């Protein structure tokens, strides 16, 4: 067992007094005390400080991932009418219940939610702590502050224009574009293996219909759940496509399924949903919108 160091006169008296005198000189003669006079002076908060949320209406797509992940259940989606953006759904926050974990900002697929360094949120009225989407709206926040999340340039497919010409698959130097056939439709669509893609943009250059566009996509912190499609249950009602906030679902006609009508003409063909998973944000809205159990999404509650 180590012997405790013996404290002598210098340790009891001289060194403490020298220590306090140097501190006094440091805070009175050569500098200022360490504390700040709070209401008049404030500390410089770190840029990653988690204070009040701010919402960029133009970036937000209303997917509701923030509402899903909120551990305290303090966010909700509010339907509102915007003169610029039309009918939209945007999240509000109840900071009386918020624990400022920052999950909403992390999970947001478009980085529309940011945590600001605003911390003076106390109010005498509890109902004033419930802030709707318009109260936390700040469309210019991302211009004033550097984005903390990394972006990735990826080719994003507009399936409505795609002609399945396979030029993109032939051009890709990394061999990461594969033409996957779509059941029932008869054609195939390019699927991009995202972790192999080097963002060279050759597929987008070569596309004759300009349906592959290089887009900045935020890197995700969270692993997204993916929808799984069951073709035989799909009725082609397109409820999922209407529900999708990211426009990742396209309704394509399936040739050969037309019904013969009474007058001998052929009716309209049946439709099916096709998912472009590069655009999907994993919100589970299609899963909830589908009334025929044609979409399965493991890990998402209905």
């Amino acid at each position, binding site marked *: 067992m180590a012997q405790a160091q013996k404290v002598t006169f210098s340790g*009891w*008296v001289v060194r*403490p*007094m020298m*220590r*306090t*005198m140097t*501190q*006094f000189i*440091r*805070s*009175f003669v050569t500098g200022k*005390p*360490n*504390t700040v*006079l709070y209401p008049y002076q404030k500390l410089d908060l770190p840029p990653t400080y988690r204070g009040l949320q701010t919402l960029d209406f133009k970036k937000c797509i209303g997917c509701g991932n923030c509402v899903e992940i909120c551990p305290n259940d303090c966010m909700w989606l509010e339907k509102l009418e915007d003169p610029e953006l039309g009918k939209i759904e945007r999240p509000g926050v109840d900071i009386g219940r918020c624990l400022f974990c920052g999950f909403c900002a992390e999970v947001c697929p478009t980085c529309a939610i940011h945590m600001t360094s605003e911390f003076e949120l106390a109010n005498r009225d509890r109902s004033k702590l419930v802030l709707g989407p318009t109260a936390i709206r700040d469309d210019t926040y991302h211009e004033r502050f550097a984005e903390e999340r990394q972006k990735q340039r990826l080719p994003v497919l507009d399936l409505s224009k795609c002609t399945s010409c396979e030029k993109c698959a032939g051009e890709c130097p990394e061999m990461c574009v594969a033409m996957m056939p779509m059941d029932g439709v008869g054609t195939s669509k390019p699927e991009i293996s995202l972790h192999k893609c080097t963002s060279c943009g050759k597929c987008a250059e070569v596309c004759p219909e300009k349906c592959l566009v290089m887009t900045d996509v935020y890197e995700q912190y969270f692993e997204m759940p993916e929808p799984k499609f069951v073709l035989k249950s799909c009725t082609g009602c397109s409820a999922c496509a209407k529900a999708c906030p990211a426009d990742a679902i396209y309704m394509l006609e399936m040739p050969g399924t037309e019904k013969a009508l009474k007058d001998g003409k052929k009716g309209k063909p049946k439709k099916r949903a096709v998912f472009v998973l590069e655009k999907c944000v994993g919100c589970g809205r299609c899963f909830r919108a589908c009334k025929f159990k044609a979409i399965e999404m493991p890990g998402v509650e209905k």
Partner: protein
Amino acid sequence: MNLFEFCYGLMHWLVDILNNIWYWLGDFLPWKFGDFFIAIGDLAKAHGTIAVAAILLEVLIIFIIALVSVLNFIWLDRKFMGRIFDFYGPYYVGYRIGGWLQNLADGMKLFVKEVITPSKADKAGFLLAPVVFVASSVLALSTIPLSPDFGVAVNRAGDFVPAGALFAFAAFAIAPFSILVAGWSSNNKYTIIGGMRSAAQMMSYEIPLLLTVASVCLMAGSFSFVDIVAAQSNIWFAIPLALGFIVFLVCIVAEVEIQPFDLPEAEAELVEGWTTEYSGMRFGLFMMTSYLRSYVAGALVTALFLGGWHGFDFIPGPIWFLIKAYIVFIVLTWMRWSLPRIRVDQILQFGWTRLMPLAMLNLLIAAAFKTLGWF
């Protein structure tokens, strides 16, 4: 012109003005009432009356100087402590003068607080203890002159009391008795422990303290503050008696019971020590008096070791005295916020095996200097 003559002149002037009114009333009113007012005027004009009033005025002046010093000391203490611990200290109340008014605000707050006497307390002792504590501490001020012309305890010729130092230390040493009474009568375990600790602490520091005082009196050849300070006109006693100066400083810290020796009021161990049961302005009085005792301690150190009112001529003597007392207080505060509190089982050993031999050695040195004829 000394303080007494100044006060006498002032009171005489006041009495003359007032006597005009009395005598005018005496002439104006019918004979019985008139005689009454003329009698009042004659009484006021008498030498004894004016002298008593002048002495009261003197006491008031000295007391006001002490109280203003107390306000300054509390402010200095808190400011200095703040800077030592890297924060601002009092700031908002009177921020143009560095938060000086914070003490007055605290005092006002203490005035409006409820004054509680515990139901099971010994009422007489509980109420007597603050009186004795405050009165004895103020009494110690009476024989300490700020300069040969500026003091209370003088005779008609202007000479100070011959044994002023003895009286000051005697009055200063009454406080542990009142602390013990307060601790006992509060009927609370923390207060009684605090009071007993005060008595135990007094045993340890009083002897080396008085031995160093004896060495100073030996060097000066007198018990009077004026003679002691006059003996330091060439060299301060802090230089030949450096050892005694340090011992005296340590003992005076123990005497006023501030931080390294605040055993009776050990906030970390006993709640608030012997003042636990006192509330409102009674506690405020205790706190004020503890700083008043710091002022007395500073004055004693100044008079005995730092040459009292001697200094350069362009500053008057009393101001020199106060400057030195303030510097001593700052040193005490520096010790106060730096050093760890001594443990209750170490205090007697510390006082008797460390301080007392040093004080004896110091007395020996003083005797040697005196024998060699250097002083």
